[in-house]
């Protein structure tokens, strides 16, 4: 059983009281417990089971504008006492930083909405095994599938965030995740692909037959890839890739990158940074949302942000420290975005495929070729060549490159948004990027 609110609260207040007693002017504590159980299958038999029970505490102590932090997994009173003393001693000799402080009291979350993020259902390991059996049976029907690996994870967590200004809140959340990775082989190549489902509530996850079928189909489609020639052609990004551009965007508009001057989007508020059909929203209070939050990691209330309207940047993602540096109020984004998404475009998926006679459709990228200082982008890619709206053949061992400043202005979005992750995008097309191949 995960630790209840009372237990976590008692640990948090023990730490706050002790920090105050030692002489800290302010303090904040986060205590969390999470239990997860995973069962893994390989080639239709049990491969691994893993049970994880993790406690974690992190404490920040302030002496006016001086701050230091400690974290630990050992919640015994003895250990906490030693650590808080150490933290306090470190704080004393850490230089002052005028922007250090707890969040403004009036910004702290007061009404905690029930966003239905916790499902108390428990799926016994035997039931997880049944799910994975069905999944792998379906995934391995085609003889070209030579290896299947799948897993089912159930996670339950609970946490409390408390600070010396009287904030003390937390809530439980849960997730149920099933995934399937398949390997297909023919005389020309061996390829791997995957499919997964992850939801807060057990009853919302995909059916195992569907999951196994999709993973196998996607993998078999990749067999016998060709390398294409270097060229400037339009690229369509599958939903599982297009969302990555949103994550990069979120990194570039975080108040910390802006305050440090290390973002290509610095000073771009009120400017056109995307094509004018693009709207981006960050919505924290989505019911059962994978990224939903009642307050941010400092306790600040979260509200929906329209980050980009008709291509124009409206706002940064702001936390207390960097907000003070920029002379802006926190908008409850310490710890980043919540449920971040591109709103639907006007074109259907099918029409997008037909929009040019020759298109590269990217289903996977590898490498870390994103530079948020310059906006330069260069990654390895795998996908398909589309001619006249039809998938012709799989493509691999190529790279795609461009710069976000131009790429963002050349985005066309389809109208097929769905909420599968905490960051979501419809299928996306970008014109004018360079493909390097043969």
């Amino acid at each position, binding site marked *: 059983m995960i630790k209840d609110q009372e237990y976590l609260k008692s640990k948090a207040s023990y730490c706050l009281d002790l920090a105050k007693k030692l002489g800290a002017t302010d303090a904040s504590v986060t205590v969390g417990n999470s239990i997860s159980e995973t069962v893994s299958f*390989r080639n239709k038999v049990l*491969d*691994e*089971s*893993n*049970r*994880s*029970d*993790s*406690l974690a505490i992190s404490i920040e102590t302030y002496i006016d504008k001086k701050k*230091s*932090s*400690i*974290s*630990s*997994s*050992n919640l015994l009173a003895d*250990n906490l006492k030693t*650590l808080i003393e150490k933290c306090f001693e*470190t704080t004393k*000799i*850490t*230089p002052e*930083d005028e922007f250090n402080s707890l969040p403004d009291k009036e910004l702290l979350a007061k009404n905690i909405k029930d966003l239905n993020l916790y499902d108390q259902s428990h799926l016994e*390991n035997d039931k997880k095994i049944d799910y994975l059996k069905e999944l792998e049976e379906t995934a391995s029907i085609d003889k070209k599938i*030579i*290896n299947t690996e799948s897993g089912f994870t159930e996670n339950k967590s609970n946490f409390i965030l408390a600070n010396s200004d009287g904030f003390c809140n937390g809530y439980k959340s849960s997730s149920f995740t099933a995934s399937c990775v398949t*390997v297909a082989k023919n005389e020309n190549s*061996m*390829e*791997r692909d995957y499919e997964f489902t992850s939801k807060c509530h057990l009853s919302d996850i995909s059916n195992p037959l569907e999951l196994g079928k999709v993973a196998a189909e996607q993998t078999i489609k990749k067999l016998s890839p060709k*390398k294409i020639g*270097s*060229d*400037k052609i339009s690229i369509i990004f599958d939903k599982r890739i297009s969302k990555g551009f949103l994550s990069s965007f979120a990194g570039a508009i975080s108040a910390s990158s802006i*305050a*440090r*001057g*290390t973002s290509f989007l610095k000073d771009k508020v009120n400017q056109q940074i995307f094509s004018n059909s693009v709207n981006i929203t960050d919505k924290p209070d989505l019911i059962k949302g994978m990224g939903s939050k009642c307050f941010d990691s400092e306790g600040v209330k979260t509200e929906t942000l329209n980050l980009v309207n008709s291509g124009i940047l409206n706002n940064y993602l702001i936390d207390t420290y960097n907000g003070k540096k920029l002379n802006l109020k926190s908008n409850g984004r310490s710890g980043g975005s919540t449920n971040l998404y591109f709103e639907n475009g006007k074109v259907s998926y099918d029409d997008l495929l037909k929009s040019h006679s020759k298109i590269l459709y990217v289903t996977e990228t*590898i*490498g*870390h*070729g994103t530079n948020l*200082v*310059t906006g330069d982008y*260069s*990654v*390895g890619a*795998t996908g398909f060549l589309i001619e006249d709206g039809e998938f012709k053949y799989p493509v*691999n*061992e*190529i*790279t795609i*490159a*461009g*710069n976000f400043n131009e790429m963002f202005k050349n985005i066309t979005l389809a109208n097929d948004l769905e909420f599968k992750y905490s960051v979501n995008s419809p299928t996306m097309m970008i014109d004018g990027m*360079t493909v*390097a*191949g*043969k």
Partner: protein
Amino acid sequence: MSNFFDKSDLTRKDVDEIVSETLKNCDDGEIYFENSKSESILLDDNKIKSSNYNSDLGFGFRAISNDVVAYSHSNEISKDALKNSAENLKSTLKSIKGTYNHEIPKTNNKFYDDINPIEQKTLDAKLEVLNKVNNYLRKKDSTVKQVTASFSGEQKSIEIIRSGGEALTDVRPLIRFNVSVMLEKNGRKETGVYGIGGRQSYDDYLKNDNWKNVCEEALRIASVNLDSKPAPAGEMKVVLGPGWPAILIHEAIGHGLEGDFNRKKTSAFHDLMGQKVASEGVTIVDDGTIDKRRGSLTIDDEGTPTERTVLIENGILKNFMQDRLNARLMNTRSTGSGRRENYKHIVLPRMRNTMMLSGNQTQDEMIKSVDRGIFAVSFGGGQVDITSGKFVFNCTEAYEINNGKIGSPIKGATLIGDGPSILKEVSMVGNDMMMDPGIGTCGKAGQGVPVGVAQPSILIDKMTVGGTKL
């Protein structure tokens, strides 16, 4: 040495009994205790941005029957927590009838000292170095707009208790010192990053004002990039500099030679043992025994002493890297490559220090032989798709080569290649093998472990460069 039981209701005898009872019909398994202390101190934007100290304690209990692994971990060290874990393992492995393999090799070698680097330098002294770095760089060059410098240090104590009561222990220090600098000139911004580290005290790396060399190197990389032109796109010849660019070896073939992917036949190398996978003259080893290196270990996380494993000898595939589980299932022995990020994770076969050994040619000869290509000196990170064998890495410092001469610097670009065939494209191997500066972390299945790489300069006849210029 950590005493894992002094604050709990557990005695060593209880642990032995629970472990032996739980593993009695298993093929392998152990309980792994870990106590780690770590710190990170960061200077950023002219200020000490954070000073964090972490202490983590926990155990992971593993039972293996044939090829099924049951694992349970917790950070409560108590009789109840251990018994709960034991119950959880038994409930997974319902009907087991294995024979426990008690055999585990021993060693008297030690590749680092039992030190706690965090305690060996005062916080004041660390803050002083970070402030010196900031002032030095900002004074040195007026285009410096941002400086980030950090210390991270760790001491990890582990104790592995196997069925029958055999115990194996290790104390592992690890430090890293890093500097990142951003320059701005004529509206253009570029960053340069450099770091050093390994399994010694901070001062072993910082003596003789060595922090200045780290600053200079970060500054040099950033300056070069300020003048960089768009990188070319397409297939061409690539000369790799010595040292850190060996992450090519790590990604292109290292991961593909880890035992698990080959037992499962999902690696592009699984049926190539004894075959020619690289040009003649190419020899690659994975070595866990180099004194005080970031990737070195006295014993791996299953207790097996590490070794120098020859992976490819003169172009021929000789060995995979193995942990106990994959070794047993493939009828071979562990190469001391069983590693885990911490007690929360299962053991996997992993790399330690992966090195391509020196040949006879010079870097000069390589450059002179190239009509059109690139010379890559420093890299960010890399990644591989084990199954298709395709791998990438990102240049952070590279130059064009035109008619045998080094030309302008080029912007960061991704290079992509095919693991099983890339080493056959190596046409020259340099005589200048160098270790990396001790900063690598390898990710696999969500677990990060410290690793090292080394190589001489090499010439690759054909690779795809992912620039924007056609």
